[in-house]
């Protein structure tokens, strides 16, 4: 009897304090149920749904004013282009340091447990992007990183020892990895950047144990493949549609959802007539085979550099009274979309920022082009939104508590200029942009955190920012929305009203997901900015 009692007590302790009960082991079943384990942060966006939502509520509207810095970590050498979002599991935080270092930190103190850096070539090609890493994935006792020179590396979660290292793509051709992998079941999914180097985009799956390649889906078709007709005579060199951020996963449908980048060249469309599939789209692939289940192209024949690489947000909500499996996407082209994620069918969409390039969306969600909004020679054409869109790659947040979709919106336009630019065979000599933009002068631009009704896109409230911000968003069950300003403020808003409740000046804009975790009964809010990794908690 005593033994049974002891076992019960022990199991009770384990249930209460999972962070201390396990030693770096996050199997698939655990990640699958990440929303019910809010003390951890097991994927880039908090769960396979990429909702950027935490159900922790120790930090809430009533006490947020008391939030203070709990610890700070700084890399041993100053870094630039810090965009690292963490994974938190079993008392350890896994972060990256630009360009491709993985560091494990103690979540209570910020002290470094181990660090691993790849041996990068002397000259890493990074065309049209920063050589950085937005984070790692975890599966079981292994963490995975895509490196700046396009290797996928598996590291032991306890030591940082290399388990395996595969060369995914040729960095000399412009392939460079910046996005976090997505680990599910027994595999690791990873894409690459490089559209401005005119590489052909892809999404790959590798065996998590061995690194063996399981499948590849090319995101631009070549002659003879379905969709090649959407490139006209340019199909033989179809390029772009790179997959440089994180994706989402629906385990019930066994579908991976991933956004794709712009076609190449960006602004000169002379040699790529047609819709240019599957650029500027969200693609849904069977997780086991990599076969395309459906796609939805936000911006057919795109020529404003409006990638669609924001992580797709999955949520379930009623539409017209019926429960639906939905996918929300605040696109760089300025429209917010709601899709049926079982089949990719368009449900609704509307602009969430000023846009001038489309008269609207048709019944299938295809944009109805407005006249004279293409890049032109000389002074260019003023188009809204700007090159970085209504929002770029930074994660929005969906709160199941409020039913709102929170996005850091950019209100600005730009003059789009068409130039010369052709895809040449061989290693790229520079950006294959075929033009550029001229930013608006003065104080004509601003940013805003906007709360949209997730199923309709209607604006519920906004909190204006001095400038368009590239800072992801987190919402919590504490009734809070966290994000940042381009000037370096980290702040919390009331999730229902948008009222500002707290701010902390970090001295530099953040570029990473704010996330939340809990250890020893204390909730933390974490973000990186400039050269620092900051954890906040109540005193």
């Amino acid at each position, binding site marked *: 009897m005593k033994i049974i009692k002891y076992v019960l007590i022990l199991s009770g302790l384990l249930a209460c304090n999972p962070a201390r009960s396990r030693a770096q082991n996050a199997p698939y079943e655990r990640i699958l149920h990440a929303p019910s384990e809010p003390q951890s942060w097991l994927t880039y966006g908090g769960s396979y749904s990429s909702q950027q939502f935490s159900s922790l509520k120790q930090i809430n509207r009533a006490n947020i004013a008391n939030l203070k810095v709990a610890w700070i970590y700084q890399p041993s050498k100053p870094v630039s282009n810090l965009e690292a979002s963490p994974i938190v599991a079993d008392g350890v935080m896994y972060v990256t340091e630009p360009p491709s270092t993985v560091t494990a930190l103690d979540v209570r103190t910020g002290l470094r447990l181990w660090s691993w850096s790849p041996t990068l070539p002397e000259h890493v*090609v*990074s*065309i*049209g*992007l*920063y050589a950085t890493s937005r984070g790692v994935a975890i599966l079981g006792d292994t963490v995975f990183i895509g490196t700046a020179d396009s290797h996928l590396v598996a590291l032991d979660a306890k030591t940082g020892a290399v388990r395996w290292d595969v060369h995914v793509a040729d960095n000399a051709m412009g392939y460079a990895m910046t996005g976090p992998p997505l680990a599910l079941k027994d595999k690791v999914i990873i894409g690459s950047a490089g559209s*401005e*180097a005119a590489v052909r985009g892809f999404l790959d799956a590798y065996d998590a144990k061995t690194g063996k390649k399981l499948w590849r889906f090319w995101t631009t078709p070549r002659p003879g493949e379905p969709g090649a007709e959407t490139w006209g005579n340019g199909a033989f060199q179809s390029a772009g549609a790179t997959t440089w951020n994180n994706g989402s996963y629906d385990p019930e449908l066994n579908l991976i959802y991933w956004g794709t980048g712009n076609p190449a060249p960006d602004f000169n469309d002379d040699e790529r007539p047609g819709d240019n599939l599957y650029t500027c789209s969200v693609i849904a692939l069977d997780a086991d085979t990599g076969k395309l289940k459906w796609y939805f192209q936000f911006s057919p024949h795109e020529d404003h*550099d409006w990638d669609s690489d924001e992580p797709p947000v999955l949520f379930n909500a009623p539409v017209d009274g019926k429960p639906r499996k939905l996918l929300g996407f605040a696109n760089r082209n300025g429209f917010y979309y709601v899709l049926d994620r079982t089949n990719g069918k368009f449900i609704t969409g509307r602009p969430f920022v000023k846009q001038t390039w489309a008269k609207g969306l048709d019944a299938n969600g295809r944009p109805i082009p407005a006249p004279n909004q293409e890049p032109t020679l*000389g*002074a*260019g054409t003023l188009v809204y939104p*700007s*090159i*970085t869109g209504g929002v770029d790659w930074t994660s929005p947040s969906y709160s199941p508590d409020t039913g709102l979709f929170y996005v850091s919106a*950019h209100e*600005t336009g*730009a*003059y789009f*200029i068409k*130039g010369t630019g052709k895809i040449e065979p061989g290693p*790229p*000599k*520079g*950006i294959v*942009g075929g*033009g*550029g*933009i*001229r*930013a*608006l*002068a*003065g*104080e*004509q*631009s*601003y940013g805003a955190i906007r709360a949209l009704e997730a199923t309709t896109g209607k604006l519920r409230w906004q909190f*204006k*920012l*001095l*400038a*368009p911000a*590239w800072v992801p968003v987190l919402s919590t069950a504490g009734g809070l929305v966290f994000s940042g*300003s*381009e*000037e*370096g*403020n980290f*702040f919390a808003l009331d999730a229902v009203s948008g009222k*500002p409740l707290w*701010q902390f*000046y970090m001295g530099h804009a953040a570029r990473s997901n704010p996330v939340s975790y809990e250890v020893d009964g204390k909730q933390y809010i974490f973000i990186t900015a400039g050269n620092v990794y900051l954890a906040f908690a109540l005193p």
Partner: protein
Amino acid sequence: MGPNIQAIPMRLGAPAVENVIKNGMSGEMPALAGQVDEAQIQQVIAYLMTLTHKDTGTVTGDAAKGKTVYDASGCTSCHIISGEGSGAGPELTKVGQLRGAGYLKTTILYPGSDLPQARVFLESGGLLDYLHIHLVTKEGGAYDGTRVVEDSFRIVIKDVNGKFHSFQKSGLRVFEKQPGKSVMPSFKDKLSNTQVDDLVAYLASLKGDQ
């Protein structure tokens, strides 16, 4: 090492500047395409355009006489040149390197009418420098001055005496940005045309090389 490009970007236009930045110049300047990203290139272009944004007009006055005008007109009470003067307004030691004669004249006659661009954010043109601010706190305190720095929650201004004042925007009852106004007085009715031209010549000669 490289050429003085101050007057060049405006003459070439943004697309040509972009082309040079991205592709370099044979044997002279390395191509930056691939070394820095599109957003950074746009920031560089935006900055370069501001360098010459004001560079219109030619110097017609006498710089030596202009120095006398400068010393006699109270300019030193707000500006520093080579360490001499007071710092309420912007330092002018290198103003001839940064601003053209036309812009200098406009500013002397109509201060605040054409503000240069200051901080450049990633995707917008950036904020105006020396923007005039009028604000009133919830307690009733009224302040006027030049914006020094602003973020989404706070602002710091510098008053006519050069004193800094910082505020939480949530604590303000009135917060007005007033482009066109300036804490600097106009010298339109205080100086003759010749004196203004001489003053412009003096300021345009200040390259900060002593």
